[in-house]
């Protein structure tokens, strides 16, 4: 009889743990590599303040995160894009209710060396530069050859730039690939003919940010939806967040959480 009770208790515990993971003191976060730095930093600080909660953060990409959320193997899906139509239909057919929680904005600034007379580009000109159709500044009001600088292909900024600016076309093969936003800014600052792109938080006095379609990249223009190279960053939950999931998301949207967002180079929504 005692054995039967133990088995029943264990089964009940497993059922409760799987049915309500956010209440079990453990939150699994999975998905976008762009959102990953925010999730990781926020989890560290949140767990310091809430040692009874364990937050496990994994990358894998937006699609992986959303698939895991729909399969019930994670509690929060990080995504740098809205959920796709097919994923929504899949969610509905599985009886899931993916709820979008916007936690920050991602904005990418196009920068050149301060000596470059060019102040503004159209989105098409930017695409033509990075896909190799335009190779000289003379076609754009400057002079000399263009040195294109890009983030390396494993970065979330590279992925975002490819989607927002290049319509998923490939970056020209002669582009210099740099491992960080700081490295891109540094190369552009030292190279007269260089053009690069960085998170808006990385604009500094050593480089000149260009207007795109007549709009200067800033927190204000991104938040007012004026600037083209920007997008919301999501943390999807299954239904309205509750329990530890809600506490964690509330923390990210708090003033302290949004400061972490800004420190990671993204644009906070407020707090």
């Amino acid at each position, binding site marked *: 009889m005692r054995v039967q009770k133990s088995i029943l208790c264990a089964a009940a515990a497993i059922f409760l743990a799987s049915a309500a993971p956010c209440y079990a003191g453990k939150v699994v976060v999975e998905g976008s590599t762009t959102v990953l730095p925010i999730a990781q930093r926020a989890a560290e600080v949140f767990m310091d303040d809430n040692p009874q909660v364990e937050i496990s953060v994994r*990358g*894998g990409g937006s699609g992986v995160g959303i698939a895991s959320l729909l*399969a019930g*193997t994670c509690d929060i899906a990080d995504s740098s894009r*809205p*959920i796709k*139509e097919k994923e*929504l*239909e899949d*969610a*509905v*057919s*599985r009886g899931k*209710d*993916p709820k*979008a*929680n*916007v936690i920050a*904005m991602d904005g990418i600034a196009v920068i050149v060396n301060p000596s470059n007379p060019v102040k503004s580009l159209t989105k098409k000109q930017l695409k033509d530069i990075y896909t*190799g159709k335009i190779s000289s500044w003379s076609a754009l009001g400057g002079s000399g050859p263009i040195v294109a600088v890009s983030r*390396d*292909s*494993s970065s979330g900024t590279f992925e975002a730039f490819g989607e927002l600016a290049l319509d998923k076309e*490939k970056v*020209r*093969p*002669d582009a210099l690939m740099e491992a960080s936003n700081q490295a891109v800014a540094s190369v552009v600052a030292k190279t007269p003919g260089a053009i690069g792109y960085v998170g808006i938080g990385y604009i500094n006095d050593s480089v000149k940010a260009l207007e795109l379609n007549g709009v200067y990249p800033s927190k*204000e223009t991104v*938040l*007012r*939806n004026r600037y083209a190279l920007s997008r*919301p960053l*999501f943390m999807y939950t299954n239904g309205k967040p509750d329990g530890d999931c809600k506490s964690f998301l509330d923390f990210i949207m708090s003033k302290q959480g949004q400061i972490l967002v800004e420190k990671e180079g993204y644009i*906070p*929504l*407020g707090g």
Partner: protein
Amino acid sequence: MKKWYLLFTAAAVFATAPVSNVRAGEIDILLDKLVDKGVLTAGEARQIAAETKEDVRKEVAAGKSDTLPKWVQNTKLKGDFRLRYQMDHAKSSHNQTKNRQRGRIRVRLGLESKVNEKLLVAVGMATGLNEYTTSNKDTIRSTNQTLGASWSKKPFNLDYAYAKYTPMPGFAVIGGKMLLKDAIWEPGDLMWDTDITPEGVAFDFARNVNSDMSVFLKSGFFLLEEISSSNDDPYSIHIQPGMDVKIADGISLRASVAADYFRVRDFTLKGSSVSNTGSYKSGDNSYAVPMANYTNIMPALELKFSDPFKAFHINVPQLRLFGEYVRNFADIDPYSGKSGYMLGFGLGADKVAKFGDWVLKYNYARLEKNAVLDILPDSDRYEGKTNIRAHEIALDFGLGENTWLGFDIYRAQLLTAPRAPSTVVQVDWNMKF
């Protein structure tokens, strides 16, 4: 209170407007006004806009779900059509030249339906002969249909039909007549013609070790013939452990070792003919009877490089290098050879998806007489026979979305005299739907 009223109004505009009329511009103007009036911060406005748009999209998806029957939502149809010109140029054992030109088609239609979250059923039909005939040098594994015969109606047969049960992520059990890729991985087609659809049960397991490495195990038990007069039937067993490794940024490796056992000795195999080249004894109706059980070990390797010529400013999306080796450990005629290998590369796009995409492929295959059962190899390469060596070069070029041209040339000959060299040229127009 005013703030909540305005927020409610904004949300109501999203929620009540017909989906086709929801215009992002109008929504943004309204939110901008709320920001200008100091009701919302710009961040709050962006959050509301993005989250509400997502809610509306979800409602649309739910609406679709309500209007379409469940079985329609759970079922997918797919297919393809290929129009082929083929020229065979062969020299016979008496050194006489023979040319043959053919118009050929291939049609495949497939349907797959989710029975529930863990169970999927798939059925496919394809052109092709359903039985080997000595008058036609095609083998039973081909899906090509030669045009002619006074415009006769052409056979359209069951190509595959299987159930796939996935009790947990990374593990699936497949039963029925299944697609080759579910049961076996091979980077080329040295041993297995890619049109083969094995019959039996297979187990497909895959697991991530870390972010740079995963392992897999494919295994299966397959029925080769059913002999009504006997309770002892020929079968095969397949076990294939392997791994995927990300070696560096843009470089990945897939490697495996497959072990296959074919219990075929003294059984009549309908897919094999006495005109084929393995060590067989003649059976009834021109079918062949293998003289031994085959035990094959096949290591295989595939290396993929993304943007391989970037340093030279040449834009080629992918380079694929592969190699495979097969050896038969059966106790059978040691003098006629029991091993084979294939080396090859692929260059260009990962797949031809739009106009201008291209893929160039080349491989060299050498397959000794008793290396593998000759019911298995590519039916286009020297009519699927063993005891051959062959070069194959192919180019696919995208004509538009879901349609491409293919050029494929095989140059092959026997390993032993008479060499009887053969050249096959195929020009294909492919359409996928």
